[in-house]
């Protein structure tokens, strides 16, 4: 069973990101689970969500204690996210404008904000960084690109999904592993 935790700020779309990842697992022929932690919701407050993927039934219902992957939606949260727990061989995926790395953990970086802005995925609150992050995380988890794309098409069929599809595909190709 693969376990992943998303750390972000309220309003960044961590729940939708978790749902997309769980749906991608099902699309990929596995079981998936998205378990957002709902606190006292406020924009800007730190939030987290658990995601699990497994070829067999998923019985876990706790928040991921020592996840195999930690997705950091804002670079500012990196230290706090790691201190919440990560498996000793766990991988970190960070949304940041430039290369960053976490000590002792393989780290991937993607500029989700720039990709979202370029694709015009912007709301009154800012860019929809969760869409490019979905593409990037799928790449790091070795989920085939067509599975990632089908998941987006299923959720936003037709014209509505095109910009999402473009941004997620761009992030899928541009997320890079950092070697510092």
């Amino acid at each position, binding site marked *: 069973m693969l376990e992943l935790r998303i750390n972000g700020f309220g309003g960044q779309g961590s729940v939708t990101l978790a749902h997309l990842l769980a*749906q991608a697992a099902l699309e990929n022929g596995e079981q998936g*689970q*998205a378990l957002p932690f709902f606190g006292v919701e406020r924009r800007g407050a730190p939030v987290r969500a658990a995601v699990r993927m497994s070829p067999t039934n998923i019985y876990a219902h706790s928040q991921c204690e020592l996840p195999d992957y930690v997705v950091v939606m804002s670079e500012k949260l990196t230290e706090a996210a790691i201190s919440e727990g990560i498996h000793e061989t766990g991988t970190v995926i960070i949304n940041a404008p430039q290369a960053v790395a976490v000590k002792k953990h393989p780290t991937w970086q993607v500029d989700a904000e720039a990709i979202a802005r370029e694709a015009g995925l912007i709301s009154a609150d800012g860019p929809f960084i969760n869409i490019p992050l979905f593409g990037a995380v799928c790449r790091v988890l070795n989920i085939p690109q067509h599975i990632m794309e089908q998941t987006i098409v299923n959720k936003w069929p037709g014209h509505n999904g095109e910009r999402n599809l473009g941004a997620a595909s761009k992030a899928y190709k541009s997320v890079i592993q950092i070697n510092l």
Partner: protein
Amino acid sequence: MKAAAQVIMDTGAHAAALAVKSARVDVVPGYPITPQTAIMEALAAMVENGELHARFIPVEGEHSAMAAAVAASAAGARVFTATSANGLLYMHEVLHMASGGRLPVVMCNVNRGIFAPWTLWADHQDSFAQRDTGWIQYHCSSNQEVFNTILQAFRVAEQINIPIMVNFDGFAISHCLMPLTLPPQEDIDRFLPPFEPEWRLDPAHPSSFSNVTMAAEYATFRQMLADDILAAIPLVKQAAREYQEITGMWDGDTIDTYRLEDAEVVALAVNSMAAELRLSVDILRQQGIKAGLLRPRLVVPFPSEDIIQVLPRNAQVMVLDRNYNYGHPGGILAQELKGALFGRRNDITVKNRVMGIGGIDLPRRLMADEIRAMMEE
């Protein structure tokens, strides 16, 4: 050609709403409370857009929600409502009207800790505090089980004229997105035929019910309710078996077990923590401890005979309660278990912990560590 089952991704709360829709309910009175709200929102939308041909009755509080449920059920409707925590407590008086009136209302209680102080997250004080209201209570450990159990609950409730509460954890199940298998509607219709009450309130044939009774009549009604709650056990088993024959899905009947046959240490718990406990059992087995799991699905009536039959000889049972049994050390499940075993299984040792109150996270390693610590006591 026969329709095939469909697999979707869905939350526990929405799975509950889909089950209620497939049960073809007639009336849904509702008042929102976190984390149950998602069920009521989904049902209100289904009624609004015509997917569900039912009357949705928005009310001003849970006492009225259950009062509307009682009245609609007495008029012969198939009725569903849902609540959580303090909403369930506010219904307390009317819960007795539903059971005493022998009305087969089905209700989801999305387990949440009780005020004061406020909490939003799961523990089981709310449903366990309603243990003595004359309702049958299921407790579910997965989204799929919530869906399956609501359908089984309607069937059992209408066979025996007793209301049923289907409990599952707030957030850990209600807001957890998981794969959900939807059996074809024709299979569900075969499992759950339309509700045909033996009697109903009908203006064309005026009558009254639940009138003042003299002591002997009152005592007779109470005795019938007490007897019939116990008589629900074979119906619960039959419903689980027939549901499995039709849909291929099985969550256990009165109980669910995992690696129990040769277990020396048995974890006993309900709801989502009991699902994660399977993984704790695997951890303990890897550490050389012969561990197993016994999960009651049915808490009222307590499945005493099934537990007595299934527990391995000389087992230590570690009861993990997510509630307090105020006035006694520990929790309510442990007390129920001890009551069931006393004089019947003197070979069994029962140990108890209260854990996970107010939604404290219960990861598999933590529960495995706790069980190991309990073994030393």
